[in-house]
């Protein structure tokens, strides 16, 4: 299916959902669930919490759906709601998202590789989760969701200059925290 057809299809689903069609909204959820859950998960670091927050984000999206204008991509509009929900969750559940209390993630690789991978993954995860929420959300939208500076600015309703400064801050903090894994040879 071409991108144009997919977009047209999405616009049709949105229009139907705006008229109250829950089946169409269900399809929109299925298409965007991965992105929304991954954004919220990387914001709070706990999958159970992330799935609850993502559900809350979709419920808010349903309520606000009549006000959605297809000027901005639907995905970005959802990201705006999801980012706000994630920030609410972080404010509400400060103790729950303490990085030192987060469960370790399982691995499907061989023991040696698995150990190294799990160690590195945990290191990265903790480094990301210790960033201030305002910088973290910018980093996640850029590095994991692939949004441009302008799109991030629109999603978070902040100036592009603020996006750049928060992104630079997040990256510099991560480079400090992940220095052992970032040995660079000058060519």
């Amino acid at each position, binding site marked *: 299916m071409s991108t144009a057809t997919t977009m047209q299809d999405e616009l049709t689903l949105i229009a139907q959902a705006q008229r109250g069609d829950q089946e169409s909204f269900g399809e929109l959820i*299925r298409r965007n669930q991965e992105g929304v859950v991954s954004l919220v998960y990387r914001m709070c670091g706990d999958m159970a919490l992330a799935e609850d927050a993502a559900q809350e984000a979709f419920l808010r999206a349903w309520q606000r759906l009549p006000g959605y204008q297809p000027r901005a991509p639907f995905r970005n509009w959802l990201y705006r709601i999801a980012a706000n929900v994630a920030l609410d969750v972080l404010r509400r559940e400060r103790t729950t998202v303490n990085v030192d209390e987060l469960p370790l993630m399982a691995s*499907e690789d061989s023991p040696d590789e698995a150990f190294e991978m799990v160690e590195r993954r945990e290191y990265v995860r903790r480094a*990301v989760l210790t960033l201030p929420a305002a910088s973290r959300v910018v980093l996640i939208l850029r*590095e994991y969701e692939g949004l441009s500076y302008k799109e991030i600015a629109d999603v978070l309703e902040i100036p592009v200059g603020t996006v*750049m400064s928060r992104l630079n801050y997040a990256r510099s903090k991560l480079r400090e925290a992940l220095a052992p894994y970032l040995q660079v040879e000058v060519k």
Partner: protein
Amino acid sequence: MSGHDVSLAGLYYDGELRGHRLHHFEAHLERCPTCRTELESLYRLRQLLQSFTLPPDRTSPERFAARVRSRLPKSRPQPAWKSMLRGLWQTTPALLFGALTFGQAVFTVSGTVLMMLGLAGGATLLRDSWLVRLALLAGAVLDGSARAVLQLLGTLSWYVLLNLIFFSAIALLYWGWLASWWAYRRADL
């Protein structure tokens, strides 16, 4: 480009450099090891960040969608302006009554204050207040003075007419609003 600005490496890496800035930076990159190191470091960071993946034991999109749908309200979503409009519609009678009472209270209190200060305007204001006129009329009726009643009715007549027009206009507006809302709701179903 003389010297180097490592922030440009970040912009280049994020695909945010365009036109001549992009060409200048690419040319600069050829001869600047510092910027190349910066760029390489950003690529490595991105690679490393990719290890922060989602756990495998997460809910499938179908199940997730079903859970959200089970929590959706039965009614269709309403735009925010519609909720505000509905609130306004429901409170319109109270608002109109409140505004009228407030206006009359201001009118009566101002008249009383002006009269107490000995200013002529106070008496006029008080005399023109329909609350005062109605009170006087009620008093005259209770006293059984037909002449006083007729006099008051005479002075009230023009005032009553104006009030009648005013209230009819308000009533028409209100019932018009009610009818349009009803028609809108019918069309909406």
